[in-house]
C-alpha cells in the first residue's frame, strides 16, 4: 500500500498544472470572495423627501447622515423629482418622511415612513432598508420615549456585527473546496484506473480493494487538509476572521467531512465507467447542490418547504452549520453533536454502498 500511495503522489506531482489549480484555486476563491464580492455597504447615497422641516425629521436626517452606511445626497419635497436620480443609479434609496411628525406622534395617530429602495439589487436594498429602519426607530424612540417605547426595535446583528461577507464566504469556500477536491478528484482518479484498464491489473495483484481505495484517497486527504489550512490562515490573517471555537474540534470535523466527501467520490466512481461521466456526475450531483442548497449563499429558511427538506440531504449543509458555529459563534460539540452525527451517518452509508458496489463489480 505504501507503494500505491507513493505512486499516487507521483501522479499528482507529475501534473503541475492540475496541482497548481488545486492549490491556487482556493487562494483565488477566498481572495475573490474577500475583496471583490463584498456586500458590505459604506456611505451609500440616499435622498430624503419631506414637506416640513420639523425638529424630529431634522434629527432623523442627521442620524442617517452620521451613520457609516448612508450619505444624504439630496433633500427634496417631491419624490417625482428623484426618479431620474434613481434611474441613473445616483441614489440607492429614498426615505420619505411624512408632514408634522411630532404633532402626529403626540396625537398617537399612525405615522408612516416610506423607504423606497432600488430592488434591482435586492440584497443591498434589503440591507439598506434594515439599517435605515433601525436608525429611524432609534431616533424616534430617543426623542419620544413615552410614545414609542412600545415599538422600539433594535436590530443588532449578532456575531457578525459588521455583517462582513467574508465571514459568510469562508465556511462556504472551505466546504466547496473540500467537496471538489475530495469527491471529484477521487472519483476521477479511480475511474481513470478503470478506463485505462490499470484497475484490472491492480485487481489481479495481491492488493485488496480497500488498499486500492485507501491508497487512492490518502494523498487527497493530505491535499484537502493543506487547502483547508491555507483558507483558514488567509481568513484569519488577511481578513481578520474571528476564531472563537476549538481548533481541535474544527480539524476533527474537517476530517469527518473530508471522509464523507471521499466516500461520496468512491461511490460515484463505482457507478460510473468513464472519467467524463464521473466529472459530470460530480458536478451536477455535488457542486451545484453544495453551492445552492448548503445555505452558504442562499438562506435555507427562505427556500420553499420541499427544497428545505431536500437541503437536509446535502452533506455540506450540515458542515456549513458546524464551521460557522465553531469559528464565528465559538460553540462546541454540545451544540453540534446532531450535525456531527448526521455527517458520520452519511459517511457510513456511502462507504457501505461503495463496498457493496465494488464487490459486485468484481464477481
Amino acid at each position, binding site marked *: 500500500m505504501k*507503494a500505491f500511495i507513493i505512486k499516487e503522489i507521483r501522479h499528482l506531482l507529475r501534473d503541475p498544472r492540475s496541482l497548481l489549480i488545486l492549490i491556487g484555486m482556493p487562494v483565488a476563491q477566498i481572495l475573490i470572495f474577500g475583496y471583490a464580492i463584498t456586500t458590505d455597504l459604506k456611505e451609500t447615497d440616499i435622498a430624503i423627501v419631506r414637506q416640513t422641516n420639523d425638529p424630529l425629521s431634522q434629527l432623523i436626517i442627521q442620524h442617517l447622515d452620521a451613520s457609516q452606511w448612508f450619505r444624504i445626497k439630496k433633500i427634496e419635497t417631491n419624490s417625482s423629482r428623484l426618479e431620474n436620480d434613481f434611474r441613473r443609479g445616483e441614489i440607492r434609496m429614498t426615505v420619505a418622511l411624512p408632514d408634522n411628525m411630532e404633532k402626529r406622534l403626540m396625537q398617537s395617530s399612525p405615522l408612516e415612513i416610506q423607504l423606497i429602495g432600488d430592488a434591482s439589487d435586492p440584497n443591498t436594498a434589503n440591507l439598506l432598508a434594515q439599517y435605515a429602519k433601525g436608525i429611524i426607530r432609534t431616533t424616534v424612540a430617543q426623542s419620544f420615549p413615552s410614545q414609542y417605547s412600545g415599538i422600539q426595535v433594535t436590530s443588532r446583528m449578532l456575531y457578525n456585527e459588521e455583517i462582513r461577507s467574508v465571514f459568510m464566504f469562508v465556511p462556504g469556500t472551505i466546504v466547496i473546496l473540500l467537496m471538489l477536491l475530495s469527491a471529484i478528484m477521487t472519483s476521477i482518479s479511480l475511474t481513470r484506473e478503470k478506463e485505462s484498464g490499470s484497475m*484490472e491489473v491492480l*485487481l489481479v*495483484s495481491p492488493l485488496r480493494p480497500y488498499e486500492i481505495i485507501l491508497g487512492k484517497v490518502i494523498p487527497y486527504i493530505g491535499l484537502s487538509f493543506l487547502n483547508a489550512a491555507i483558507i483558514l490562515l488567509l481568513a484569519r490573517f488577511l481578513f481578520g476572521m474571528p476564531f472563537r471555537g476549538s481548533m481541535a474540534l474544527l480539524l476533527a470535523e474537517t476530517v469527518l467531512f473530508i471522509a464523507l466527501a471521499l466516500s461520496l467520490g468512491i461511490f460515484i466512481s463505482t457507478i460510473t465507467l468513464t472519467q467524463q461521466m464521473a466529472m459530470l456526475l460530480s458536478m451536477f450531483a455535488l457542486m451545484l447542490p453544495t453551492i445552492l442548497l448548503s445555505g452558504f449563499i442562499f438562506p435555507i429558511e427562505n427556500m420553499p418547504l420541499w427544497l428545505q427538506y431536500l437541503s437536509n440531504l446535502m452533506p455540506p449543509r450540515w458542515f456549513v452549520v458546524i464551521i460557522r458555529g465553531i469559528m464565528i459563534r465559538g460553540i462546541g460539540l454540545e451544540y453540534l453533536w446532531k450535525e456531527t452525527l448526521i455527517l458520520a451517518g452519511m459517511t457510513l452509508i456511502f462507504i457501505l454502498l461503495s463496498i457493496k458496489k465494488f464487490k459486485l463489480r468484481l464477481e
Partner: protein
Amino acid sequence: MNYNTNNLSIKVENLERRFGNFTAVNKISFSVRRGEIFGLLGANGAGKTTTLRMLCGLLAPTSGTALIDNTDVARQPEKVRFKIGYMSQRFSLYEDLTVWENFRFYGGVYGMSAKDIRKKFEDLSQRLNFGEQADRLTRDLPLGWKQKLAFMVAAFHNPPVIFLDEPTSGVDPMVRRQFWDLIYESALAGTTIIVTTHYLDEAMYCDRLAIMAEGSIKAYGTPAGVLDEFKAVNMQEVFLKIAGKEALLQ
C-alpha cells in the same frame, strides 16, 4: 508426452461462465504444464478473454473449477494472486510515471523489498539494455518498448504463471518477434505462459494451443497436431474450417 498431474501448472475442468442467458464460456477443460507456452486463440467474442479473466480471479465462474498450482482460483483468490503475473491488453504501464517508477510500484505491490526491486531492476536493465530509459516517462517511449517493459513488469516478481492478454496487438512484426523472444526466455526459466492472440502466425510459436469459438474449445493440442487433425497446411485454414463447420450448423 508425460501428463503427470504433479507437473501441471494449470488445470481447468468444465469451466463455465454465463451472463444471463448468454453462455460466454461453455464447460471447457484443458491443462497446461509447467514451463509451457499455451495459446488461447479465437475471434473476438469467442470467450478467450472471459476464460482468462476467470483464471486470474477477476471473474467468478458459474460452474466448474480452475486450479493454478493446485490452488482453486475461485476459492482462494488471495493465494493465487501472488502466483500470477498479468499483462492486460488495454493497459501496459502508467504513462505519467518513469520506467523505474513503474517497476518500483509493481514490485511494491507484490511485496518485494526496496533492495530487491533496485537490484532486480538493475540486472534487468543491463541485460536488456534499457538503462538510459529508466528515468524517461513511459509516455515518451515507442509502443514496442512499452509492450516489452509491460511484460517485464508482469514477470518482475517471478510469478510461476504469467497471463498475457493480446500482448502484441498493434505492434509491428519486428517487435512482435522480439517480444516472443522474451516469452521464450521466461518459459525456459520455468515460467508457465498463457497467451491470447488473434495473430494466427503466433499460434505456431506456442507449445500447445486451444482454439475457441462460441465459448467452446474446437481444437486442442500442439500446433502440428492441430494442423494434422484438421488436415490443414496453416492455422488460417484451421480457422476457416472451424468457422465453416459452425456456418453449416447454423
